[in-house]
Every structure is written in C-alpha cells, then in structure tokens.
C-alpha cells in the first residue's frame, strides 16, 4: 500500500456523507420482497445442508436392509432408499456437495474470467486477440456436449470417486469463464477511458496495481450479479451431469445423482419420495438464486429497473 495522504483522506471523509454503494444497494434490496424471501430460503438451505446432518439421528452411509424402501413416516420424514438409508439425511448431505460445487465453480470461473478479461481489455493487441479467440472457441462448443466429452476424458483417466467433485468444479469453471471474461473485458474497455484511470497513469502506478486495485474492483457490482446467476447455472449443470452418471458418483450423494433413482422404473412409479425431494431441492434453490440475482441487479442499478 502507498502511504495514505492524511489531508486528502480527511477531506474525503467530510465530503462523502451519503452511505456507501453497498448500504444503498442493501436498502433497495430489502424492499424487494421476492429477493428477500429467496435470500432467507437460501440461508435456510445452507443451514439445512451444513448443520442439519448433525441433528439427524441417522448416519449417512449406514445401510439397513430391514428398513429399505419405506415411505415417508414419522421416523423417516422422507422415507428410506433401496439400501435402507434415510433420504432426508442423504438429501442434506447432497445439499452440501451440490451447493459447494456450485459456489466453488462460480468462484473459479469468476477468478479466471475476470483476470483474463481484465488483461485482455487492458493490454489489447495480441494478448487480447488470443484470449478472446480462445473464449470464442470455447463458447462455440455447446455446453452440455463439451461437459460430456470432458467427463468422458476424465473417466478414462480413472479419477477416484472422492476426487470427482473437484474435477467437476474445474470442468464447470472451464466452461463458465469465457462468458465472464468477455463481460469483464467490455467493462474494462469503457472504464479505461475514465478520468480516474488517467489519474493512475499520472501517479505512475504499476499495471498490476491498476488492474487489480482500480479496474477489477469497479466491475464488482456487475460481476456480483453474474456470479450469482452463475451459481444457479453450475448447480443445474452439475445435477444434469450427475443424473447422467457422469458427474458426482455414488456413494457421494448429490442432488443430481439422487435423482438417478428415477431411472429405475419401479422406483420411479412406486417410490416418488426417492426422486421428488432432490428435484424439488434443486428447483427451489435455483429459483431462489435467480430471483436473488435479479433483485441484486435491480438494486445495484435502479436505472436498469424494468
């Protein structure tokens, strides 16, 4: 850090009295009922997934043949599966996996995407061309087929089941970064023309500092919205892959691979408690994330309000 100039700082403090952009945003967000309900639902989902299992009387992978395929009851709120495992407990554990993958994939894509996008927009020229063409190419291969191919390649490499979820995160971010990079690049291009960037030029700041401390922070509001929506997309992709048996594989539960039960016609017809709860969990979580992201967009930029 450069040593802050005390006089300048004081002046700034006396001039700026209005609340920070984040406080304003949150105040506007609070007025959006749907977004707030979504936020609370997501909090509930997190608590359920990460703390819920500790309150469950059942142990995750404990099978109980005497007690298999029980419909929902007072003891097993969502019934038991083909191995006699409690569905609710598995649903909560699966929530941990699915939510973690969604968020981790988003963080990775945002990191790669914003860095490459910023470099691309800042340096222009050859670097820009190479990065953007790579992004174009990756974006021209349809998403699900690309994920399927990557999944096939990874199965050839015989990745152990417990590491699969890390691989899925990397795969999802591999597919997710190009869109983000393009978005950040666009923002950087317009930010670069603004007076405060001339100021950084005059101050003789290094490129690294310009990019990391001045350009990228200014893209955060927009990134926040896109990142939120990205989590929803990642959760959907992960669940689709896992449903097809190419994502997270049992015994590790995920919402997607729990739905695999529906591939068995008997389970599908006779035991809806095996596949309706995980599907509903995915649906409600994704709806909430989408509504929250939309609310954030409106709150951050009231001009864009529709």
């Amino acid at each position, binding site marked *: 850090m450069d040593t802050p100039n005390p006089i300048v700082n004081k002046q700034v403090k006396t001039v700026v009295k209005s609340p920070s952009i984040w406080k304003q945003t949150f105040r506007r967000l609070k007025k959006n009922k749907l977004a707030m309900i979504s936020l609370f639902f997501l909090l509930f989902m997190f608590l359920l997934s990460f703390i819920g299992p500790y309150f469950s009387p059942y142990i995750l992978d404990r099978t109980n043949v005497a007690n298999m395929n029980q419909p929902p009851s007072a003891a097993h709120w969502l019934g038991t599966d083909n191995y006699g495992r409690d569905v609710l407990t598995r649903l909560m554990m699966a929530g941990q996996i699915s939510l973690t993958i969604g968020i981790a994939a988003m963080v990775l894509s945002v990191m790669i995407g914003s860095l490459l996008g910023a470099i691309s927009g800042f340096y222009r020229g050859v670097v820009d061309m190479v990065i953007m*063409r*790579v992004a*174009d*190419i*990756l*974006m*021209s*291969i*349809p998403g*699900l*087929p*690309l994920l*399927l*191919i*990557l*999944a*096939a*390649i990874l199965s*050839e*490499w015989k990745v152990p089941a417990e590491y699969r979820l890390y691989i899925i995160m990397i795969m999802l971010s591999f597919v997710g970064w190009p869109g983000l990079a393009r978005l950040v690049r666009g923002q950087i291009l317009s930010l670069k023309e603004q007076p405060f960037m001339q100021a950084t030029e005059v101050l003789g700041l290094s490129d690294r500092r310009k990019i990391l401390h001045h350009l990228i922070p200014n893209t955060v509001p927009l990134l926040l919205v896109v990142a939120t929506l990205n989590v*929803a997309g990642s959760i*959907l992709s992960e*669940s*689709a892959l896992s*449903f*097809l048996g*190419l994502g997270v594989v049992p015994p590790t539960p995920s919402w*997607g691979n729990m*739905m695999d039960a*529906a591939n068995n016609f008997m389970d*599908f*017809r006779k035991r*809806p408690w095996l*596949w*309706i709860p995980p*599907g*509903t969990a*995915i*649906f409600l979580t*994704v*709806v909430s994330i*989408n*509504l929250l992201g*939309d609310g954030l967009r409106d709150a951050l930029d009231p001009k864009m309000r*529709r």
Partner: protein
Amino acid sequence: MKQYVLQRFLQMIVILFGTSFIIFFLFAMLPGDYIDSNISLTPQRAQELKALYGLDQPVLQRYFTWLGNALHGDFGYSLKHQEKVLSLLNKYVWNSFFVAIFALVLTWSIALVSGVISAIKQYSWFDGFVTFFVFAAMSFPSFFISLLFIKWFGVDLQILPIGGMIDTGSDSTGLAHLLEVGKHMILPVTILTLLSIGSLTRYFRTGMLEVIRQDYIRTARAKGLKERVVIFKHALKNAILPAITLLAFELPGLFSGAIIMEQIFNWPGVGRIQLESVSFRDYPVLMAFTMFLSCLTIIGNFLADVTYAAVDPRIRLK
C-alpha cells in the same frame, strides 16, 4: 457493410479452424485408443494397425489428415453401429429436428405474445404471473420436469405415452402413423418449449418496456393516435427487430437434439446417439457431431452479427 461482413467472415473461418483443432486435441488427449484396448492383438499386429490408421504419426499430422477427410465429408466409421458416421447421424438428426422445430415455433409465438402483453400491462396480475412463470421455467432442471410430466400425464393420468416415438410393436402407416408420432411428441415438445421460453419472454418484455418509454412513443400518443396503433405500429416493430438476430442463435439448437430429454423419453434422436457415443467411447461419432454443432453455433453467431449490423447501422461503424 461489405467490409464488416468480410471481416466477420474471416474471423469466423479462424474460429472454425481453432474449434476443430481444440476438439481434435481434446480427443487426442484420451489415453488409449481402440487398438490399444484390444488385448487379442499381438504387439506387432497392433503396430501394423496403428500404421494403417495413421495413429503412429504425430498429433499435428493426424489433425491435418482428419481435417482433410472431414472437408470431403468423410468422418470415419462409427465403432458401435459399424456405419458411416454421416449416414448414422443423418438417420437420427431429423427425429430431433422435428421436435426442436415445433418447440421453436411454440416458444417464439408464446414468448412474443406473453412478453409484449406483460410489458404493456406492467405490474398487472398477468405481468406478475408471467414474471413468476419465467423464473420457474428458467430454473427447472430438465430431467426433473421431464420426469414429473411423465409421472403426471403418463403414469397417473395415463393420457399420454411415457416414451418412445411409436407404440411398442406398432407398424401403423400413413395418417395413423403421423398421429401416433404426434401423440408421442406432445410431452417432449412441451418440455423443450417450457425450458427455453423463460429467457425469450423476458427478452421481449424488456425490449418492449424499453421502447414504450421512448420519446417517440410519447409523441405518437400526443398526436392522439389510438393506443392500439401506438403499440402495434410504433412500439412493437422496434421492439422485436433486434430479436430477429436471436433466431440465428437458435440454429444449432434445431439439430443438436436434447440430450437429457431424449434420454428420459427414449426418443430416438441424435442427443441419445451422442450420450451413447460417450458411454461406448465411440469417438468418431462424438467428434463429428461436436464439430457439426460447433460449426452451426459459429455460423449462427456470424448470421446474428451480420443481420444485427444490417438492422442497426451503428454496429458496423465501430
């Protein structure tokens, strides 16, 4: 305009080559090929076969051989179906296409009508309903909604078939055949429509809302024009013009097949072939099809950009 199209065209060619390169290398990265995995071959015979198929050459050379063949329409043989890749894909792609084209027409007409109405009547109960529905439609996992529909309409109510394209053992012809296929198509088309309608409705609504706030709309109203004329003649035209370019983006979707929907509905489309080729490691098929889809995507993007430039002259001045 000519210069813009040319420039964009050259860019497209570069991306096409880059994409083919990436796809080829993704597959070349796979450990083992179908000769390595055949344990009945002696090392000497395996070597001969590799030389025959050109697998002993460096990757770059193999890429150019493959590319040369591909440009002549030769994508090799499917290992599982023992059939030329192209004729195999040709057999299944139309089953996917018909579902997709029906879904496309439905999606666009419903999205246009509901998007425009909800924009005109912003904050009405209809608008609220549409907004809610849009979010729900955007958030449904495709496999979950497919399964729910099969359960409701196929298993519980028993009014629609649960899968396949024709009844088992059916050999109907002519009109009866068409009706039978049509009946099997209802659920797949409905689901594809549901899954893609959200974002498009939103797009039309936003576009319409933006246009309604323009000064020239106020002017039109101030002139004393009827509200109907203002909306349909002045606003609607400007609101949907940019959407025409979106049609170009739909191009790959028409042929790509819906992997998950086809899998669940047992629909004999190209999406299922794709999934099958993943699980059987039928790489020639997978590679050719991925390449085909990427080409369509790239061509679609090109068309979108060009039509957009034609519609909005500001774009090509940049």
